């Protein structure tokens, strides 16, 4: 059981995900979106941002499978590229949030004392303000655009990650193997990276999957409200906002991005649930704690 048990480590998680129907659907949906986003340049027949005055408000069919919008842009192409935009921005933002959150959480848990107090107090005050409000403040001060959006998300979501990862790290830090490392005189980075992180990686992974869906929803909401992506970026939220007054004329211009967004978010949620279950991370505790 020695070497084989170790080699079976990852496949065991994969097997347990495949056993659950909802988790399989979740990962399937995410994978589908990733593939569509990667293949967007191949699948899209038209440029997603160039206007075509000769093809305004076309009905679905022929060269435009889903029709065109008021500026004559192909809806299918925009939706496909919208997936690229949604995935890259939300995954980048989530990666920054989780990375930063994990590092700060590790330091807070390791040093404790005033540093920990300071970090948790700041967190409490950030979490006390409604997310959308702090987002609007950031956007109002720095203007709109992708990077401002990512920065705003970092401000809003890092706190939650810190809380959860800090709790997980505090559970590992008093263990004897960490004490052994301290007694050897190991530095803080060694202890956090080599002794603590491997034991909380499951929590961090689930945190990533869960936050990704929230971040995506938030980016789309902001774009819809006009604070996110600037036109003519092919963003799903922006597409819905641009075309909602013409729903009766070109329904697919709003329905296509909505369906895309909904399936990706459902996929991410189911996937993170499945991941949490197969890694044995208690998500109820996560959300409450």
């Amino acid at each position, binding site marked *: 059981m020695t070497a084989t048990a*170790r080699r079976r480590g990852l496949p065991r998680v994969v097997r347990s995900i495949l056993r659950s129907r909802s988790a399989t659907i979740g990962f399937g949906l995410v994978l589908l979106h990733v593939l569509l986003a990667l293949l967007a340049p191949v699948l899209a027949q038209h440029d997603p941002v160039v206007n075509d005055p000769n093809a305004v408000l076309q009905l679905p069919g022929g060269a435009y499978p889903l029709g065109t919008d008021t500026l004559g842009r192909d809806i299918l192409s925009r939706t496909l590229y919208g997936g690229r935009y949604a995935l890259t921005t939300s995954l980048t933002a989530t990666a920054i949030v989780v990375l930063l959150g994990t590092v700060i959480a590790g330091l807070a848990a390791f040093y404790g004392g005033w540093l920990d107090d300071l970090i948790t107090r700041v967190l409490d005050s950030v979490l006390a303000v409604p997310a959308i409000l702090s987002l609007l403040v950031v956007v109002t001060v720095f203007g709109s655009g992708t990077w401002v959006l990512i920065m705003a998300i970092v401000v809003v979501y890092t706190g939650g990650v810190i809380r959860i990862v800090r709790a997980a790290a505090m559970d590992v830090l008093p263990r004897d193997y960490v004490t052994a490392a301290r007694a*050897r005189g190991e530095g803080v980075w060694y202890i956090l990276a080599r002794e603590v992180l491997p*034991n909380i990686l499951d929590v961090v992974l689930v945190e990533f999957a869960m936050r990704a869906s929230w971040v995506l929803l938030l980016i789309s909401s902001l774009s819809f409200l006009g604070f996110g992506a600037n036109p003519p970026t092919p963003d799903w939220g922006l597409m819905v906002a641009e075309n909602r007054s013409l729903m009766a004329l070109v329904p697919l211009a709003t329905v296509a991005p909505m369906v895309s967004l909904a399936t990706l978010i459902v996929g991410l949620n189911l996937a993170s649930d499945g991941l949490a279950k197969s890694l044995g991370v208690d998500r109820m505790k996560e959300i409450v704690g």
Partner: protein
Amino acid sequence: MTAVVEIKDLGVSYTSGDRRVDVLSEVTLRLERGDVLGLVGESGSGKSTLAGTLLASLRTSSFISSGTVTVEGQDVFQLQGRKLREFRATRVALVPQNAGAALTPTMKIVDQLAEAFAKEGLASRQERRARAEELLKTVRLPNPAAALDRYPHQFSGGQQQRIGIAMALAARPSVLVLDEPTTGLDVVTQAAILDTLSRLQRELGMSMVLVSHDLGVIDRMCTHIAVLRDGRIVESGPTRTVLSEPAHAYTRGLIASVPRIAVPGIPPSIDGTDALTVREAPTGTAKVLEVRDLTVDYRHKHVPGTGPTVHGVELDVHAGEIVALVGESGSGKSTIANVIAGLQRREAGTLTLSGATTLEPTVARRTKPVRQAVQFIFQNADTSLNPRRTVRNAVDRPLRLFDVRGRSVEKTLAEVDLDGGFAERLPGQLSGGQRQRVGIARAMAAEPTLVLADEIVSALDVSVQSSILRLMDRLSREKGLGVLFITHDLAVVRAVADRIVVLYLGRVVEQGRVDDIFGEVGHPYTRILLDAVIELGDDHDAAAPARQDEIPDAPPEHGCAFASRCPLVRDVCRVETPPVVPLSPTHTIHCHVVGAEQ
């Protein structure tokens, strides 16, 4: 006479993948009214599983593969739903190992007890209180009337265990199942609880099933004994017969491997391959550690009437010497070890390494050679190794960090009798004894001069215990290693230590060579500790009744810390710090009374 409990050809199994694993097989036992049956065996022998079947309780994935368990004529595994709950509420009661954790933390003691006798239908609050108080009196909880309105965390471990027993007795069960009821407790408290239990058993005529790894406890309590190994009964019968004339080789090995105060030396291994080893104390070696006037204070502000946690501790460790630091839980043993390792700040005192280097208070301020020279071995082999890192990682790190030349992971593992194949394993793939060896290897990799061994054998089975003690003995001799061996187990101390330092509430009360401490004259506290030890083959009926008091929460501000429990106490003890009195060139005690008589 009809049997209270009858177990016939019992088998318990669980399935792992496609494999069926037998936890218990062909177990047949009978228990008459008033019998006390001891279940003995090493961890994994199935003794707790067997005890659980009396309450028709199995782990979720386990099932009965054969046989029956009958309690008072009732086949317990036929019971379901309400009938099963009624059966558990009235016939068989369980006292778990850690009763403190089994009590609901947010519920007052009176309400917890009232739940247990709810079926009696005591209508009024007064009646329920009276009954609860009576129960607490039966288990000799101090001040039972006041205890009713307190919460579980306000009691010590021993008191929580008493409350757990009271709850089990509340429904007047015919069988009481006790799963390692005194394992987490210190010797004085253990003796008191066992005393109470055997008195209750006699008075109430109950039958009991006692699970324990401690043969001394079994010998003290049980009329009958069943020795389990790999889920099978290897031997059973009346306790005295089985223990004095064991028929099975395994039972003989098990009995021989128990360390005893009466027998100096490390007991033989369970299969008899290693004989009894008596250590010889090194002579004339240099000091590797000198602790002077050490004081540690956990109090954030001065609390009137209390003193610092650790005060005025002085001790030496020489090269090649094993010095035992002995005391009950809360005596400050681990605090002292942490101070020496630089993990805990000290308020006062000097620590000198190898006669020359002064140890800085924190790890961060110590130089690399100093950190290398002092190594730690931990109690709990489960948490002392990182579950996600291989044995190689664990042992290799100190080799690299301290730039140790001429030593490899394989060589280090060989020193602790593990072959190189273990290097690629994860801690989860090792047994408890193997993990502890890796923990020792990690410390040895740094080639230390001083090792702090904190309760390193107390979580291990006796057979593994003696092999680890043997290893520590060999390493200390071969490498001239100074070992500060922290433990609460006096039999282990007798087996392996050269000198002993006895701590009480963070103060040294006595120190000397092993023979001095286990000799005739000594500090009253040490005498109480020694008297409380329950050993195999003692005359338990002739023993004096156990003391029912417990260690106070905090040391007093003035005088002798032991004054509040001392049988020889005088007025001066409560006022003045006791003097250090040499009883012989190697033996000192801190006492106003015994010292003055000499």
